[in-house]
């Protein structure tokens, strides 16, 4: 009787194990890991294919580019496109111009946007209207204001200069920076600032010593986004700069279209040369974009 009972229990247990095995493989392996990896690969492919295509195009013979649209080079690999890209067009100068404009406009954006956003959130500066208005300017298509902007920049004599363009980029990126900083600043417990006020600090010192260190990841993230936006900006660069001394990289790329016909190979080489610095930069910064720094400060 007793052995029989034990046997039954064993049989039941084995059945449970067996049943669990099948369902385990179906749910955890097939729909779990495999599914996730496939999805991720598709995603990576979608992002990488254009870049791979540009890279391979820059290494193809010009004649091959004209006859074949293959993803990878079928003929001999050549560096002629790279050499011509730098020789025919002052690419280094364009990259330098872009770097200056992107870097300084980003710094300016952050210097203005961080205190602005802090003031809007903590002290309700401008009521509901000011923040709504800032964001509203971002909704407007830039082309609409391109003529007034050109007129204003010309009026102060900054057309065709890097300063003129970087100031316009500062203005253009301000709304997105305020919008991005908003959530980071809101995440800081109010008590921390109040404690600092009582501890003997002014509003500005509180921003500098307590708030800023806590939103630094957000400031970095916002900075990277503004940098990318400025680096890739085309419309304002097109209408405000018209010479080698102030043309930025996106305008420079378009040079390969006009002067020597459509030079796909050189254009690809130049595009890749322009992408690389910003990729490296984002890669370096992404490690610093950690959150959760305010943990442990206040109860609950």
């Amino acid at each position, binding site marked *: 009787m007793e052995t029989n009972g034990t046997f039954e229990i064993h049989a039941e247990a084995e059945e449970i194990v067996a049943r669990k095995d099948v369902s385990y493989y179906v749910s955890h392996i097939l729909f779990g890991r495999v599914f996730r990896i496939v999805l991720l690969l598709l995603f990576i492919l979608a992002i990488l294919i254009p870049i791979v295509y540009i890279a391979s195009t820059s290494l193809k013979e010009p004649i091959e580019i004209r006859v074949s649209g293959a993803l990878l080079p079928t003929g001999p690999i050549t560096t002629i496109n790279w050499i011509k890209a730098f020789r025919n067009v002052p690419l280094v100068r364009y990259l330098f111009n872009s770097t200056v404009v992107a870097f300084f406009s980003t710094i300016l954006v952050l210097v203005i946007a961080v205190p602005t956003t802090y003031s809007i959130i903590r002290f309700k500066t401008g009521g509901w209207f000011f923040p709504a208005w800032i964001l509203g300017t971002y909704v407007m298509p830039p082309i609409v204001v391109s003529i007034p902007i050109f007129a204003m920049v010309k009026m102060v004599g900054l057309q065709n200069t890097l300063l003129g363009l970087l100031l316009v980029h500062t203005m253009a990126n301000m709304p997105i920076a305020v919008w991005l900083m908003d959530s980071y600043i809101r995440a800081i417990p109010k*008590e921390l600032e109040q404690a600092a006020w*009582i501890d003997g*600090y002014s509003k500005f010192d509180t921003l500098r010593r307590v708030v800023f260190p*806590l939103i630094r990841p957000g400031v970095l993230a916002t900075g990277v986004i503004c940098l990318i936006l400025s680096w890739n900006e085309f419309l304002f660069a097109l209408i405000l700069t018209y010479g080698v001394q102030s043309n930025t990289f996106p305008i420079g790329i378009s040079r390969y279209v006009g002067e020597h016909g459509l030079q796909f190979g050189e254009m690809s080489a130049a595009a890749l040369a322009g992408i690389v610095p910003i990729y490296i930069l984002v890669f370096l910064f992404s490690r610093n974009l950690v959150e959760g720094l*305010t943990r*442990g400060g*206040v*109860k609950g």
Partner: protein
Amino acid sequence: MAKVELKNVTKHFGTVTALKNVSYTIQDGEFFVLLGASGAGKSTTISIISGIEQADEGQILLDGRDITKEFPQNRDVATAFESYALYPHFTVFENLMFPLEAPERKRTLTREQREMRVKEVAEMLGLGDLLHRYPRELSGGQRQRVALGRTLVRRPKAYLLDEPIAHLDAKLRHRMRSELKKIQQGLGITTLYATPDQLEALSMADTVAVMHKGVIEQVGKPDEIYYRPVNLYVATFVGDPPMNVFTVDYHGDYAIVECDTPYRVPIPQRDQAMLAEKMGGCQLKIGIRPVDIRMVPPDDPRAHTRGEVVLLDTLGQTSIVTVRLKTEEIKAKVSSDVIPKLHSTIGLEMDINRFYYFDAATTLTIQ
């Protein structure tokens, strides 16, 4: 060191009135305790004195100077937040140092003096080994001690402490009570201390203010609050377990407490005279503290009432016996040597000289 005065302070949050026409004065060097349940307005009071919140009406004076509209930085008060509010990006040492590095104190204290203060306070609060940790690496009780320490490193005009030891474990809390009192007496700094714990209030305070729903119910010395409560709220809030209050039939020289047998509870002569003069025909409630009740056999002639034992809480040496009369329950604090059986019927003898009398309608004490 300063006198803090609140004059008719009122504060609304939306439709909720957090403080209603609050006025009192905290004398120079006084240990003043705000006692009240959560939601009584204690934290709001502290926020308004520290300058985090602005009063809607009324004035706050610090040493005679009107600081009602002053920015917190310029008030020179130190606050320990109930929510700790530690700077997460600083270590414990840096958190404690932060108030001393404020522009004003950096001028007046040398680096050695500042470090000395931090070391002293850290030692006193048992934070010596934790100085290099970050707040996220601390337990709740440790965080609270850092929050308290950040207040104590300063020598402000007034300390404002919002439940500063509420989250410590019982043993440490007990030690901190006397420790804090000693520090405060040593420094002589005016202190406003908010707590829902009546034991803290009675043991630490020079003066206690009992708050309830944004109103100050009573301000007085701890023994005044305990022995001469002005109304039913104060009487039942202060004391553990709370005072027993029951409605009685009052007949001049005796009263009848409702239970299965109508006992006559004699009223002392002096109380009779007082009641005759001040009662004015209202419905009477009588209060008696659990410590002033003794158990007797149910048929004992000394019994003033009787009922069934419905609950026994043994607290070591003493026990709380809950007895159900007809509709009301009465608690007695008795020695654990003689606890009765659960559900047995016992008689209760009250110390008739320790009665409190209340007007049932106005809830005010008749005294």
